[in-house]
């Protein structure tokens, strides 16, 4: 299945792009997606533990089961206000 991935804040700079698409086998979790992304964008690796992950507009944990069509967003800790 194909998963659209969006980067925000300095993750955009680190990855060199605002979005990408990953192909994953069915049954993959966010943890699997992150592993695959870190291999492709080693610059993001150091950030892995503090990375926030949303599917659509809701936060999801590493165990979330991805499904076709999910839009995943990755970003560093938020800093609004």
């Amino acid at each position, binding site marked *: 299945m194909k998963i659209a991935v969006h980067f*925000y*804040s300095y993750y955009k700079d680190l990855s060199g792009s605002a979005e990408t698409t990953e192909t994953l086998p069915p049954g993959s979790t966010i943890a699997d997606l992150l592993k695959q992304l870190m291999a492709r964008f080693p610059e993001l690796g150091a950030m892995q533990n503090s990375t926030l992950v*949303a599917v659509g*507009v809701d*936060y999801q944990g590493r165990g979330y089961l991805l499904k076709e069509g999910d839009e995943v*967003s990755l*970003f560093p800790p*938020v*800093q*609004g206000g």
Partner: protein
Amino acid sequence: MKYRSSRRCKADDGIHDLRFAIYDLRANALLAPSFTGHVVVKRQLTITLEPIDEAALLTKRKISDDMGAVVRFLGVVRRTEEERTIKAIEYEAFHRMVEHQFKLLFDEMEKSWPIESVRLVHRIGVVRVNEPSLWVEVVAPHRGEAFAACQWLIDELKRVVPIWKKPFA
């Protein structure tokens, strides 16, 4: 300043604006004697590239006769960010998620405190030192709940609302 083109997003009078809420037991413990179990909580969320106009905001909200406390907070860009001197901060937002996360926070506020109104304006794009990036107002019957709800909202905003800073020296 490459995020400068972020689209303007105004949620005024939109999805978050007016709805009913039934207070849970926690909220009821705090209620004023005249509280009837549910109220219309006015909500307004504004994410904008424009400067925050406090004077205009003050003219736009009347409070009811049962409200005794209004707490307002203004967050202003400081000259120092992580011990460096800066000229401005650029705020970037993941707009759709910002709106959704604020809706969740407003829902939680309604359940936790007997507030009548909450308004929040967050400026995005480039905000210079000494200019406000955030304006929050909470109206409640008593000051304890108004202060608590306002501080909670700001703390949560800084925890879950996807807005990021980029300082400019």
